[in-house]
């Protein structure tokens, strides 16, 4: 009986998150119809996620074979949805536990520290929970210890990241109503600092005329399909028809094959997104509901498009220059002996655009251009450096895209490898977070004084 509960019920991530949703819905005193549909949808979201992962793994496998044949190096496509969906097949329980308790730690920190942020970008919470779970498990920390340490790290990041950006976010939005809760934040922070350093007397991007026609790339399914088809075509051309038609496609024309594989990848991302949407549909509102009741003056930390309306031109400029930096990096990475990170339109669009807005706020046009390029380099080099610490998951042909995953993963992964004793690792990791809290608080005060003086 105990075995059934521990392994088959709680050990099945789909059922585990379903139980979280069920308890949350009952706690909110929802009617029976809402409880039943909410619980079932949450579980179904998880099952859909798994189905999407299977689709994506097939297309990724083909891409890797072609890329390797063409260039003799491994090519990796950073895509958060893909890597998390693949990881759920072995790290689902870890992800779900760290995510739930991380949210609780977030609420506690917001209640008892001066950081009043509630991190509402649920998919990023989930992705970060997954990555922390993978790294701790790979490093030999498991079970209850892993959940406790992982949730503290996650919960701390959920307030530290919005807090770090807040002085700049305030400058962009002209108010203190909301914060940015997005794990590309280190890229934005760097962009804002670069903007400050280079952007003296540079005029705002908003005085420029920029064509809005690139806006269609914000439609994720369009931009993923477009990137993947182009990527598959380029790689197919280099791998050559002979190899593809004899080894991979079973005789199908190599261009038709490449086209369909590109769209298969995009379809996988679409399925995963639908799954994530269903999975989080009940959990995030419940989280916000609890936080609003427990934390006075709670400030919502929102997904990065929240700041896009404040600098429409910087969004387009940021995306373009981040992507250019990604293309340059593709040629630089092999020189350092790293795997090639193929730039994706989605991470460069969302984080490049946000970096552009932050860079523009501190350094005008020059800030937006150079700041978003800095972000582009970060999200190319960090994923490449992250791969070795992801263990077996580092060989799936995909990885985490945004800057924070890279920095957090690299720091945690290398610490855990460097320090033999698990206990010592935990102490050092927690001390590091405490240090960041103290430093962050001091820094925020300093920046606040500067903004007041300026």
């Amino acid at each position, binding site marked *: 009986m105990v075995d059934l509960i521990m392994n088959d019920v709680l050990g099945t991530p789909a059922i585990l998150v379903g139980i979280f949703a069920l308890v949350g819905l009952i706690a909110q005193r929802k009617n029976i119809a809402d409880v039943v549909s909410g619980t079932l949808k949450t579980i179904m979201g998880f099952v859909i996620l798994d189905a999407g992962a299977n689709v994506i793994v097939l297309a990724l496998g083909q891409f890797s074979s072609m890329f390797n044949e063409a260039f003799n190096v491994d090519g990796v496509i950073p895509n958060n949805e893909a890597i998390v969906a693949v990881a759920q097949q072995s790290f689902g329980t870890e992800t779900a536990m760290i995510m739930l308790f991380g949210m609780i730690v977030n609420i506690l920190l917001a209640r008892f520290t001066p950081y009043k942020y509630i991190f509402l970008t649920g998919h990023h919470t989930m992705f970060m929970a997954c990555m922390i779970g993978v790294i701790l498990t790979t490093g030999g920390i498991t079970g209850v210890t892993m959940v406790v340490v992982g949730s503290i790290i996650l919960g701390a990041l959920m307030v530290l990241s919005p807090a770090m950006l807040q002085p700049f976010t305030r400058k962009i939005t002209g108010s203190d*109503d909301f914060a940015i809760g997005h794990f590309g934040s280190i890229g934005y922070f760097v962009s804002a600092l670069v903007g400050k350093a280079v952007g003296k007397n540079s005029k705002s991007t908003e005085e420029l005329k920029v064509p809005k026609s690139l806006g269609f790339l*914000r*439609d*994720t399914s369009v931009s993923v399909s477009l990137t993947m088809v182009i990527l598959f075509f380029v790689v197919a051309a280099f791998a050559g028809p002979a190899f593809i038609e004899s080894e991979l496609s079973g005789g199908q024309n190599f261009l038709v094959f490449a086209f369909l594989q590109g769209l298969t990848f995009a379809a996988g991302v679409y399925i995963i997104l639908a799954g994530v949407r269903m999975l*989080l549909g009940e959990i995030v509102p419940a989280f916000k509901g609890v936080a609003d009741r427990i934390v006075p003056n709670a400030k919502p930390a929102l*997904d990065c498009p929240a700041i896009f309306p404040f600098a429409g031109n910087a969004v387009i400029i940021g995306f373009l220059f981040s992507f250019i930096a990604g293309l340059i990096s593709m040629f630089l990475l092999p020189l350092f002996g790293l795997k090639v990170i193929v730039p994706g339109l989605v991470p460069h669009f969302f984080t490049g655009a946000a970096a552009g807005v932050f860079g523009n706020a501190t350094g005008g046009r020059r800030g937006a251009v150079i700041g978003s390029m800095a972000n582009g380099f970060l999200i190319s080099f960090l994923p490449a450096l992250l791969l070795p610490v992801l263990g077996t998951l580092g060989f799936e042909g995909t990885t985490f895209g945004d800057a924070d995953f890279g920095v957090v993963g690299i720091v945690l992964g290398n610490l855990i490898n460097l320090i033999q004793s698990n206990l010592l690792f935990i102490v050092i990791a927690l001390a590091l977070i405490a240090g960041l809290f103290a430093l962050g608080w001091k820094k925020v005060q300093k920046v606040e004084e500067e903004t007041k003086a300026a």
Partner: protein
Amino acid sequence: MKKILVVCGNGLGSSMIVEMNVNAILKDLGKEADVSHTDLATAKSEQADVYLGSEDIVESLEDGKKNVVKLKNLMDKNELREALENNL
């Protein structure tokens, strides 16, 4: 009951936040509606009485038949409230 569909590029982050804001405002106004959120591609084929989203995103939904409400600032609750009052 009317159905409101909130749309954003990914259908995950901002549209979900706006959905929560819509629910709060509706409660405040004493009105009821069926609210959900999704991404742009799905929105094109999903039926709803009101499609809500930021200007540059939902523009491409307009086909002459859909009731598309374009918001300048997605996070501005006053603008959202006005849009809801005018369209329900």
